[in-house]
């Protein structure tokens, strides 16, 4: 039973891998076809939210899934990104694209600052600090009225334009934008994962002390992880603000952090496919279970608990069944040395 399911998985994975460029092109074609598909407003909104939360999930995944640092305050980064972008656009009339980039950079800087305590705190303590961070951000948004407008929120956020053409929710081009952002983030995350940086992160997650003994500057990589995670979340926040006419502090509370966390956990820690699946599931869930009324959230909590009991690695959190991918360069180098490429059994003497 287990064997056969493994074989199916393995076939599926190698199929996905072989046609990855085809899938990428297909994704791009479908993305740009969105405005011409005549989707209803409800569906556009739903898809936008899914893509947005997938991106938020990827951001948090860098921290939890790769480096193993549990943040409970990502709504704080999300808020900083959204407010930075919104305020730059409304108060200083900065162009959206520049504002979006600056939102990412500024959030990354805050991520750097929040990363500093992570050097001294571990596990649960760090989680609590991130949680406190989220509360403090929320307080600043509410109190610093001269800049953030307090509880009233930032209103009249303009829509982004490309050569005078406006991207809105209504014409579907904002959905195109977030799908592209999500795609880029996903590819970038995979690129980081399968590199020196990603290996250092995962080594820290598995055994921080051993990672240090292998010469990994654990402090630097932990902070880098915070910075990258915050950057992605900040960009997502910047995008979020233009999907709406106004934003207010209550859009970014503890429950938002938990929702992002749930995306990561339900989908599958450390994977990209899981982020998209988790976001889709958690966004569709309230739609499908509307009839449950207030019980909806009870069921939601139940879902989390059951998930942890029976599939803690997340819905799509399986380990790859594929062999480690040797790059073209590596294969060539082995061939040049006259060594075989396939794994060799040990020489017996």
């Amino acid at each position, binding site marked *: 039973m287990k064997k056969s399911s493994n074989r199916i998985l393995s076939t599926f994975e190698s199929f996905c891998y072989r046609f990855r460029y085809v899938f990428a092109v297909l994704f791009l074609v479908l993305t740009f076809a969105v405005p011409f598909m005549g989707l209803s407003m409800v569906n556009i909104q739903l898809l936008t939210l899914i893509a947005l939360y997938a991106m938020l999930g990827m951001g948090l995944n860098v921290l939890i899934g790769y480096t193993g640092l549990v943040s409970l305050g990502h709504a704080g980064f999300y808020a900083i990104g959204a407010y930075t972008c919104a305020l730059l656009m409304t108060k200083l009339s900065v162009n959206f694209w520049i504002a979006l980039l600056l939102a990412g950079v500024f959030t990354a800087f805050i991520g750097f600052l929040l990363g500093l305590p992570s050097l001294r705190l571990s596990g649960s303590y760090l989680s609590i600090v991130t949680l406190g961070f989220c509360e403090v951000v929320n307080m600043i948004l509410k109190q610093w009225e001269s800049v953030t407008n307090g509880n009233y929120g930032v209103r009249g956020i303009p829509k982004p334009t490309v050569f005078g053409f406006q991207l809105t929710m209504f014409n579907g081009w904002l959905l195109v934008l977030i799908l592209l952002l999500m795609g880029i983030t996903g590819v970038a995350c995979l690129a980081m994962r399968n590199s020196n940086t990603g290996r250092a992160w995962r080594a820290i997650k598995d055994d921080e002390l051993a990672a240090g003994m292998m010469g990994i500057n654990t402090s630097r990589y932990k902070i880098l992880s915070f910075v990258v995670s915050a950057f992605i979340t900040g960009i997502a926040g910047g995008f979020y603000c233009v999907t709406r006419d106004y934003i207010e502090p209550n859009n970014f509370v503890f429950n938002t952090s938990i929702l992002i966390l749930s995306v990561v956990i339900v989908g599958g820690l450390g994977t990209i496919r899981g982020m998209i699946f988790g976001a889709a599931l958690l966004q569709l869930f309230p739609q499908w279970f509307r009839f449950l009324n207030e019980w909806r959230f009870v069921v939601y909590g139940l879902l989390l608990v059951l998930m942890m009991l029976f599939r*803690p690695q997340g819905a799509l959190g399986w380990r790859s069944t594929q062999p480690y991918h040797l790059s073209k360069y590596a294969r060539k180098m082995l061939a040049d040395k006259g060594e075989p490429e396939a794994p060799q059994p040990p020489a017996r003497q």
Partner: protein
Amino acid sequence: MAYALVAVGYSLVFGILRLINFAHGSIFAFGSYMVFLFYSLGVPMIPAILIALVLSGLLAFGMDKITLEPLRKKNSETITYLITTVGVSFIIQNTLSVQYVFTSERQVFPSTNVFPPISIGNVTIQSSQLIMFVVALILLVILTLVVNKTKMGLAMRATEQNSKAAKLMGVNVNRVIAFTFFMGGASAAIAGALYSGYYQVVYPTMGYLIGLKAFAAAVVGGIGILYGSVVGGLVVGIGECLAAQYIGSNVRDPMAFVILIVILIIKPNGLFGKKGITKV
């Protein structure tokens, strides 16, 4: 002082499991609700509190048995425990809101959020704070005695230091942990009743903010150390008052976290926390 009461509960559980019990805040609210429920059914105050105390204790106990014990058996990662308690917290908190909308209580108390004041003689609101203070102290003394003087307490401390070794020495680790959860839940119920008695409100999400702040207090004092929780609660409470007075009433709520972050950066294990030696 209310923080100290709730913080003790966090501290108990964290002390043994190294786990932040996110459901603690909701159990606190649950306890308060139960008191409210039984009181409105005509049960006098003190028995109502006692019933709520047992029920909350059982709730926490059941939560551990049903959701956390299987995880311990599987040797799960820390994050799974964390998410589980968040899930449980969601369940409790939202069940409370559902029940509140649909039960007949709504008609009995048209102003739904008002908790009948605790009537012990003809005391004023100030005295409810006094009660809170006294009860917190008594509770702390009782818990300290339990932890330090009883056989169960010895088992608790053994489990805290090395649960594997404790198990080999014949300690029923799961029972110890379940007992700890029970005590944590019961103390949360007392805190909930007193808190609601003081502020005269009860609502499903009441445990959220106070839970977070109490946790901050527990960490500030050095989590897992009971008297540390009380000191932490005082530090946070006083810090809040000072901040409210000198900076503005609006900075009151996040003050706990500002204090927390500052203390943790200076002393990563809290004011009274102990530090361990790295073993390789």
